[in-house]
C-alpha cells in the first residue's frame, strides 16, 4: 500500500541520515589529532579556567567572512578580552605533532592561531588544557570503549542466548541461571573491589581493554535473555521442524533459519547498547576506575565537576556531557528508526 510504503521510505531516509551523521561524528573523533588544534595534555599554566574564546566576525570596519579572536588577559578572578590586537583564525596550520590514525607522523591541524596566542573553542580546564581538544581526543576512548564493548556483548550474549534457546533442557537452565547471577551482582562494589586488586599503575591500553571487558561483561546477560526468547519462538516454527525433519544438522538449521531471525533484534540492541556503554565508561572513569590523567576521556573530564565551585563557575567544562548527550541521542534515534523499519517489513 502506498501509505505504508511512504512510511517505510521515510524511515529509510531517517536511518540513512542518522547513519551519515554518526559516520561524520565518528570520523571527526577518529581524526582527533587533525580536528583538535592542540595536544590534549598540554598545560597552559597562565590560562586556568579560561572561558571559551569568542570568534568575532564584525569589527569597526564591518562584517568579515574570516573569523578572528582577541586574546584573554587575566582580570581579577576571571579573564577579559584584550581588544587591542585581533588575531585571525587560520586554517590548515602546523602545530603540535601527533600520529594520524596511528600511522602517519604529522603536525597539520584543521585550524589554529599564530603563536604565542591560543584559541580555546570550549575554554580550558584547571590546568589550562584546551577543552575542545580534550573532548575530541576523549571521544576516541569513550566512544571506542562503547563500540568495542558492544561488539563483545553481542558476541557473548548472542552465543549464549542461541545455545540456550535452541538446545533447551539442562543447558538452557544452566546458562540462564548464570545470566541471573550476572544480573544480580552489585556491579559498582564488585568493580571497586577489582580495582583494589590491580597493580597501582595500569597502562592506558590495558585500562582500555579492562574497561571494555568489564562493561561488556556487565551487559551480556540481558542480551542473552532477549536472544534466547527470539530463538525459542523461532525454534517452534514449522519450517524449522521441517528442516530438522529432513535431516538438517544443528549448524545448518541455526545458520539458515534461526540466526537470521535474531539479526533485527541484535541490530537494534547494538544501537541501544553503544550509547549506554559510552555512559558506562563515563561512570567508571568518574569513579576513578577508567583512564587516568592526563589522557582525556569524557568520564574523567566530567570527574572534575564533582567540586561544587567548579560546577557552578565554569559551565564550559560540561562540554563532554553535551558530547555524550548528542552521541547518545543520535544512537537512540537510530535504534528507534531501525526498530520501526524492521517492524514495517
Amino acid at each position, binding site marked *: 500500500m502506498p501509505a505504508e510504503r511512504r512510511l517505510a521510505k521515510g524511515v529509510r531516509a531517517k536511518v540513512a541520515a542518522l547513519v551519515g551523521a554518526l559516520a561524520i561524528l565518528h570520523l571527526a573523533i577518529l581524526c582527533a589529532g587533525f580536528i583538535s588544534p592542540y595536544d590534549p595534555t598540554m598545560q597552559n*599554566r597562565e590560562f586556568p579556567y579560561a572561558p571559551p574564546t569568542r570568534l568575532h566576525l564584525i569589527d569597526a570596519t564591518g562584517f568579515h567572512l574570516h573569523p578572528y579572536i582577541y586574546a584573554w588577559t587575566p582580570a581579577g578572578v576571571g579573564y577579559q578580552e584584550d581588544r587591542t590586537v585581533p588575531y585571525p583564525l587560520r586554517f590548515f596550520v602546523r602545530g603540535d605533532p601527533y600520529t594520524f590514525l596511528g600511522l602517519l607522523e604529522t603536525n597539520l591541524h584543521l585550524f589554529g592561531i599564530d603563536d604565542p596566542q591560543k584559541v580555546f573553542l570550549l575554554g580550558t580546564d584547571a*590546568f589550562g588544557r584546551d577543552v575542545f581538544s580534550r573532548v575530541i581526543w576523549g571521544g576516541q576512548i569513550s566512544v571506542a570503549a562503547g563500540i568495542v564493548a558492544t561488539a563483545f556483548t553481542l558476541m557473548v550474549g548472542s552465543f549464549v542466548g542461541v545455545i540456550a534457546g535452541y538446545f533447551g533442557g539442562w543447558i538452557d537452565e544452566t546458562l540462564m541461571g548464570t545470566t541471573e547471577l550476572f544480573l544480580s551482582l552489585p556491579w559498582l562494589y564488585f568493580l571497586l573491589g577489582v580495582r583494589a586488586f590491580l597493580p597501582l599503575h595500569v597502562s592506558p591500553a590495558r585500562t582500555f581493554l579492562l574497561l571494555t571487558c568489564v562493561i561488556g561483561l556487565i551487559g551480556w546477560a540481558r542480551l542473552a535473555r532477549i536472544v534466547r526468547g527470539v530463538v525459542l519462538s523461532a525454534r517452534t516454527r514449522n519450517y524449522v521442524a521441517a528442516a530438522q525433519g529432513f535431516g538438517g544438522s544443528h549448524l545448518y538449521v541455526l545458520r539458515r533459519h534461526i540466526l537470521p531471525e535474531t539479526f533485527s533484534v541484535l541490530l537494534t540492541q547494538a544501537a541501544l547498547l553503544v550509547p549506554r556503554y559510552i555512559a558506562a565508561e563515563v561512570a567508571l572513569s568518574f569513579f576513578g576506575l577508567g583512564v*587516568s590523567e*592526563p589522557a582525556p576521556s569524557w568520564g574523567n573530564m566530567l570527574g572534575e565537576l564533582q567540586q561544587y*565551585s*567548579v560546577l557552578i*563557575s565554569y559551565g564550559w567544562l560540561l562540554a563532554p556531557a553535551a558530547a555524550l548527550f548528542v552521541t547518545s541521542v543520535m544512537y537512540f534515534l537510530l535504534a528507534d528508526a531501525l526498530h520501526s523499519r524492521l517492524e514495517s517489513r
Partner: protein
Amino acid sequence: MKAIALLSLLVCLLVCVCAAGTSFAGVPAPENPGKNEELDHVSGVAGQYGGLLTIGQRAEPKTLNPVTESDSASREIIGRLNADLIEINRYTQNTAPALAKSWKTSADGRTFTLQLRKGVRFSDGHPFDADDVVFSFALYMDEAIDSPQRDLLMIDGKPMTVTKVDAYTVRFTLPRPYAAAERLFDGFPILPKHLLEKQYKEGKFAQAWSLNTPASQIAGLGPFRLKQYVPGQQIVLERNPYYWKTDSMDHRLPYLDGLVFVSVGSEDAQVLRFEAGETDVISRLNSDNYNLLVKEEPRAGSQLVDLGPSLEYNFLVFNLNDLSGKGLEAVARKQAWFRDLKFRQAINSAVDREGIVRLVYGSRGSALWGNVGPGNKHWVNQALPHPKRSLENARQLLKSAGFSWNRSGQLVDKSGQTVEFTIVTSSSNAQRMKMATLLQDDLSHLGMQVHVVPLEFRAVIDRIFQSFDYDAVIMGLGGGDADPNPEMNVWMSNGTSHLWNLGEKQPATAWEREIDQLMQQQMVTLDYRKRKQMYDRVQQLIADNLPFIFLATPNILAGADARVGNFRPAVLDPYTLWNADELYIRSSGTQSAGVR
C-alpha cells in the same frame, strides 16, 4: 472526662514540641560575678548577650569524650565544652593563663607549679579544684585508656608526674627539661572528677561521654554546655552560666545563648549552607570555594578573611624505606634513583611552585622550600634559599648523576632502565590531585614517565605506614602548633611520621643523625634564640638533603555572617571558634560588612 484527659495530653505534647523546636527558651542567664571567684577579665572585649550561632560540620562527631577523641568534628565541639589549664591564644600565638591563673618554672626547667583559679565551677555548678586536675591527667596518661594524646605527655618514654600541693596548687614534674612545656597544656581539657570517677574505677571510661550520654551527666569548664543531641542532624550547646571569663565591662562571657553544630556531610555542602545563610561561620575553605563566596559576597554580606599562609606543608616524598624481605623488588630497584640526592635535587629544581600556587590555590597560597612556611613567623629560617625553577639545572644534575636520554627523549639510568614511577595521592583531596598532575607534567619535561594514581585516603595511609608498596606520594603535614616540638615525630629518625624511612633503628645517614641531635637538644633548651638557631640548622639540613620535596601551603580562609561580632579567625586550629566565648550577634545594621 476522657475528652479533658485527651486535651491535656495534647497541650502537654504541644508544650514539648515548642520546647524542642527552634525557640531557644530556657537558656540559663549568666550568673553575676561573685566575690570569691577569681575570674579572667578579658580586656578590650565588648559585645551583647543573646543569639545562636550555627556551624556546619563536614562529618558528624564521634564522641564527646576529650580523652579518647581523635577526629576534628568531635574536637571542634569538645573544645567549646571544656577548658585547659594554660591555653595558646590563637591570635597572638602566645600562651595565656586559663584555669591556671599563673605558673612558675623551676630553675632546671623540670618543675611547673600552677596556681589554679579559685571559685571556678563546672557547668553543672560543682566547684573545680586541684583534684580534678590530678584526676584528668591520670586519665590522659593511663595506658589502659590509650588516649591519642598520651604520647605528648611522655618525655623520653617516661610520663610526667602530677601532684596536688594544696586545693589550688598543682605541680608537674618532667623527667627532664622540656622547652615551651607550658604550650603542652593547651589541648588537655580538665574533666570533672565527681562525674567520671565512678566509671573510671569500673574500667568503663572509654565508653563514657558518648553522644548518647544525657546532657545532665556531662559537665565541663568551657563557655558552653551540652543541651541536646539529635542523631544525624545536630548538636546544640547552651551557655555555661558559670564560665570563668568576663569582658571589659565585667559581664560574664559567653555572649551567645548557644551554638548549633549541624552535620552537613561534605565541604561543598558546608559552602552551600553558608551561602544560603543557613550557617553563620565557615572555616577550612579551599580557594575555589572562597573565590566563589567573594564573588557573591555583595549579596550575602558576609565577612570573608584571607589569613595568609597556613602552617601546613604539602610535599612529595619518595619511598626510602628498607624494603629487604618485603617482596617489593620493583620498588626496591627504583630506590637506587630515589636515594640519589642529585635525582631529588633535579626534581626539586623542576617543580613549578608558582604554577602550583596559581593553579591549585588560585594564588591564595605560598610556595614552600622548607618544612616551615612563611606563616610561622617565629620559627621560619629566613636564610633558606628560594631557587627559581630551572629545567636546565635539573638536566645538568641528572647528567652528573649518570642519567642520560634515549632517542625518544626518555630519561634512562646507567643500566639503561627508563625512569618511570608512580605518584600516589588521596583521591578525596582535589588540591593534592592537582599538584600530582602538575608535577607529572613538570617531570615529563625531564623525560621521566610519571603516573598519577589516586587512591582512597585509607589505602594511601596503609601503603605509607604498613605495606611500603609505593614509589612516591604527595602528602601534607603540620598545621597544629607553631612550635617545633610537635614536629619531633616527623624529623626524629625513630619518629612515627618519619615518612620517607619509617622505623629506623638508628639514623640511616649522617644528616639524619645531626637532625636527631639538634631536635633533641632544642627540646631541652629553654632559650628561644638558641632553640631558633638549632631549628634553623634543622631546616637547612632538610632543605639540603631533600627527604621531602616541598611544594606549597594554602592560605587559611574563613568566613562569617556579617552579624557575627568579635570574629577574629586565626591560622591555628580551631581557626574560627577559638574565641567562641567572645563571639556575639550584632543587632542588625550596626556594622557594614566587607572583605578584610
